């Protein structure tokens, strides 16, 4: 099972070490981690995608809450949150294949950000499903390089229920 945890932490140089260190020490698996400032420069939001069962997940959130730098931990349910990831993808596509790639990109709302003699670089943003779909559609092309930001997420305010884990 995969879960998204959104945590607000005090913004200082050691905070990422403390958070990442917790995952190493307790042997939890991080699938992705994305960090950036919030509207308050003293506060950073870290969005972590973890995999594991319900018991592990509960431990992760509890242990995260214990970290001194952590201000707030939120379990973001997929259905009640908006999730986005940015992908940069460079694929091998010479002259003859360019049109095909551009067509696929257009169909999925990806944009072309660079074209070189033998490669094309695409940029696309979306939730996991959308990203998986685009990557699938481009499977025929050999990837030169791929960079993903990791998932960022916020609760969908329109879905009033924000499941805060208790305790």
């Amino acid at each position: 099972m995969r879960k998204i945890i959104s945590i607000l932490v005090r913004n200082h140089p050691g905070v990422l070490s403390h958070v990442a260190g917790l995952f190493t020490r307790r042997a939890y698996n991080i699938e992705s981690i994305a960090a950036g400032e919030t509207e308050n420069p003293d506060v950073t939001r870290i969005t972590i995608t973890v995999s594991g069962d319900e018991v592990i997940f509960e431990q992760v959130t509890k242990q995260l809450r214990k970290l001194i730098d952590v201000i707030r931990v939120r379990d973001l349910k997929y259905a009640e949150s908006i999730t986005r990831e940015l992908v940069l993808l460079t694929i091998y596509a010479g002259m003859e294949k360019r049109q095909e790639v551009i067509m696929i990109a257009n169909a999925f709302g990806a944009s072309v950000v660079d074209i070189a003699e033998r490669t094309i670089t695409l940029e696309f943003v979306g939730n996991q499903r959308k990203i998986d779909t685009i990557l699938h559609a481009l499977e025929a092309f050999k990837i030169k390089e791929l960079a993903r930001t990791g998932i960022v997420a916020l609760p969908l305010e329109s879905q009033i229920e924000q499941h805060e884990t208790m305790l």
Partner: protein
Amino acid sequence: MTSTKKTGAQIIIQSLIDAGVEHIFGFPGGAVIPIYDVLYDAPLKHILTRHEQGAVHAADGYARATGRVGVCLATSGPGATNLVTGLSTAHMDSVPLVAITGQVPVAMIGNDSFQEADIYGITIPVTKYNYLVKHIEDLQRVIKEAFYIAQTGRPGPVLVDIPKDIQTAKVRPKKIGPVHLPGYLSLGKGHPKQIKAILQAIKNAHRPVIYAGGGIVTSGASEELRKFIQKTQIPVTTTLMGKGVYPENKPLALGMLGMHGTKYANYAIYESDLIIAMGVRFDDRVVGNLAQFAPMAKIIHMDIDPAEIGKRMAVDIPIVGDLKTILCLINQKIQIQVRKSWIKQVEKLKQENPLIFEETGSLKPQFIIKTLSEITKGEIIITTDVGQHQMWTALYYHTTEPRRFISSGGAGTMGYGFPAAIGATVGRPDMPVVAITGDGSFQMCIQELATARTYNLPVKIFILNNGYLGMVRQWQELFYDRRYSFTNLEFNPDFCKVAEGYEIPSIRVTEAKEVRDAIDKALNIDGPVLVDFYIDKEENVIPMIPPGGGQTGFIGEGETYA
């Protein structure tokens, strides 16, 4: 504070004084000379140990004996890394410490400078929190926070790493406000709904058992626990960390449970229909096999740390909060109970499965500890090292008050016991302190004999000398076909001669009939004493449940109990 400028070092020492610190255990070096310069005539007592590990364990023993924050000080690089084992030891047992380390100047950090070590990075997993101070303006706040964090909630060690140029820079001290840490300590006080559920469960229970641990000590909840037991007549077993929360010589006390616990404690757990776990963590040395732990029982788990709930054991009624507060609430509401048949059954378990050892001609460690327990009535402070001697002490010494049995439980750190005893005597000069150690463990911090001598600290060192790394040898005997691979300490120094070198009086005991006199004599000598007990070399710690075993699966008995 006045508004004249002060150096960082002056601010550090003033902040310690403001935090109520009276004693610091430390060892100097280049990166802390400015701090030591201020210490030279500060109104603080500094105890110079002979190794940083001695300093941090002493600070830990001081904290456990007094309930106050222990403080240690070390230089950068190797000085700081020598603290790591001690920090981990304190962290595992939730002991409040503040460790201050010197660091190379800010501008030199990251250059592999002389005596640079990333102690901030190194200690993240073994501290409750840590700091690297890069701006002198932060210093006052950081030290104040460090003390606050170390002793609030579930306590733990906090490290503050301070570069040398921060120690020498000058700033005008400010008045600092209360600690502000958003998100920290949103602690439960015991949910009323859960309190109700607990009261109901206790009312319904026929065979309840209390399983109490270090959390009771930390919370200062021993008095409340005693009231609770008096009202409910529920038998109590404790962990190593919980020894003394209830007097172990009372009829309702079952002693320690777990791998080397008493049989009757483990059997009572097995038979129970309600386990009331207080300030414990279902550690694997207590609960080898989770499925076979109290199979017929409902489990109540009280702890200050929500992350302990459900970490290892699925529980029926969790309650999060300060144990003293919770027990106080329960005591207000609970009714007097009588449990004649269960108490009878427990008494029978005790009678039928007593702690026994063969009292043959050779000197038995159990006999020594039992005699010590009798002579002192379980009222002095005992520290232990790690190994067989630790378990014999846990079993045969009947501790009567909390903070009087001091031992490295979670980490199991050999070398802890003697420096911890030094710290305990510094913190409690009014109490006799005996360090029970092994011939192996003692040699891991033996250099602290110099500290005991220098300050004439009345630590009584009792070595249970078996010539072996006994506990490991026992495992090899039982599980590795008696292949004693590197557990025979073929050469040990003559510990009495070593003591003599440090100008510390010593006694050698080789026969049972000398034990009582030796203990009496040692306790009555002013200052440090070493007693070297030549014990039976291959004596084992019994009872024993092999690792991963169920609560009734004692070695040598098969699964006969049912």
